[in-house]
């Protein structure tokens, strides 16, 4: 699939509008096409103004489809509209999406994530359902191809092998986007980097890397990639190891209890790992017990620290397992 084609398929109108209630869809249809193509979020909250997130700022949307900073002009969303939108998003089959709703989000075709808020119903200490939705956050998925080009060379070791890598970065700096792009390159292989593709397994606990819709990855994560969707990391890694014979396993946001054992098990089986973790720098990671143990055990051969100083995905430094810098950004 070529890039322009992908862009077309992922457009807001085609993927998201069919699932909006007509009253809101008609307003958004009046919004300038240039803005629509660059929307980051569409927010519906009960009895609150209709808002969109565009170019790092939030805007009210008026009835005539203009973006405004004045709350007086804003179109006010009713709860009924949210409920109906939810019905449309679940393709009129809320029962079939029960598990996803329970975990607080839906994934639309095209990989767009819809966050849900509402009244949570508990049963025996577990979330049974969410009802009376009061807020929807439609996050327009953006797959940025080539966003990891500048750091692939720090990950690959020859044409067939890679380093065990930990990608570190604060929220919103593009960790997941970069991880996804790395998955695509590692899996497909890329002549530009003189790398031959290897078998890749992804444990996508929050369905953010591959963004599966009914089991089918909506993002391009490569053709040698197997995705275990919505599966807890520790269990997923073991399942992949046992059955899919991957050469590398990728997973998002490690650092919770049990991750260390799972990752060491992966490494002991001779399988490589690429993972990401929240944090601003390596010394911050060492404060966290689970990660400190992993760092000490020398599990990772490359630490890649990201920031959003020069826009999302800025490469701060690359460090090897002996903690000596392979690359450091000049702060000038």
């Amino acid at each position, binding site marked *: 699939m070529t890039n322009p084609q992908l862009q077309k398929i992922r457009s807001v109108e085609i993927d998201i509008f069919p699932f909006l209630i007509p009253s809101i869809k008609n307003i958004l249809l009046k919004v300038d096409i240039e803005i629509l193509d660059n929307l980051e979020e569409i927010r519906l909250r009960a009895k609150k103004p209709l808002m969109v997130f565009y170019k790092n700022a939030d805007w009210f949307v008026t009835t005539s489809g203009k973006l405004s900073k004045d709350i007086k002009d804003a179109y006010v969303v009713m709860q009924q509209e949210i409920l109906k939108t939810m*019905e449309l998003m679940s393709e*009129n089959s809320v029962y079939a999406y029960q598990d996803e709703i329970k975990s607080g989000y839906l994934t639309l075709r095209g990989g767009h994530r819809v966050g849900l808020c509402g009244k949570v119903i508990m049963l025996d200490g577990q979330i049974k359902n969410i009802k009376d939705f009061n807020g929807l956050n439609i996050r327009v998925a953006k797959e940025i191809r080539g966003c990891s080009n500048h750091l692939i060379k720090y990950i690959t070791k020859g044409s067939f092998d890679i380093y065990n890598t930990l990608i570190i970065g604060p929220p919103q700096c593009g960790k997941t986007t970069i991880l996804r792009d790395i998955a695509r390159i590692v899996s497909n292989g890329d002549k530009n980097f003189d790398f031959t593709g290897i078998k890749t397994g992804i444990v996508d606990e929050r369905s953010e890397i591959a963004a599966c819709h009914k089991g089918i990855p909506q993002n391009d994560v490569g053709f040698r990639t197997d995705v275990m969707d919505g599966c807890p990391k520790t269990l997923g890694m073991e399942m992949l190891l046992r059955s899919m014979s991957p050469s590398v396993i990728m997973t998002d946001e490690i650092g919770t209890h049990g991750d260390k054992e799972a990752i060491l098990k992966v490494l002991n089986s001779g399988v490589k790992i690429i993972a990401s973790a929240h944090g601003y720098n390596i010394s911050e990671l060492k404060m966290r017990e689970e990660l400190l143990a992993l760092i000490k055990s020398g599990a990772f051969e490359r630490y890649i620290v990201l920031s959003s100083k020069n826009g999302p995905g800025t490469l701060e430094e690359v460090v090897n397992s002996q903690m000596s810098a392979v690359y450091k950004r000049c702060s000038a």
Partner: protein
Amino acid sequence: MIIKFLGAIALIGATSFIGYSLAADCSKRPKALRELQALLQMLENEISYLSNLLSEAFSRIYEGSNSETAILFSEAAKNLGTNGVTADAAWEEAVEENYTKLSLNKEDKAILMTFGKMLGNSDLEGQINNIKLISSQLKLQELKAEQMRLKNEKMYRSLGVLSGLSIAIILF
């Protein structure tokens, strides 16, 4: 004389035919109600064991059944295909357009409309409860319709034959 005689026979035949066809109509409604219950049972299977999406479940029911009432499901599935239509609107439209064709009355229609309100917008448990509730209501309607049928069927038939006879006698 022969012409008169033939005319009388034709007259009696015609009124009897009307009577019998009215009687046949009486059995249409209980039949439709019975079929609906069976189809709802299929819907329950579709969504609880197969976890199919509503539009898919509807089309499968329509394809898997050759009863007349399945048209409700095919119409609703068709309506669901249009953008921005929720399940309740799709179902209501299908019921509104077809209930007279299926010889259902206003009461039956109201029950089917209530069914639409809950359609697809709750969890599995809610859906199954909704289907069970509507099924039991349809069952009651069916019993009532059956009694009506027994009463009216005989009446229409004899009325058809007898009215033909009496007109013939008067005209002779």
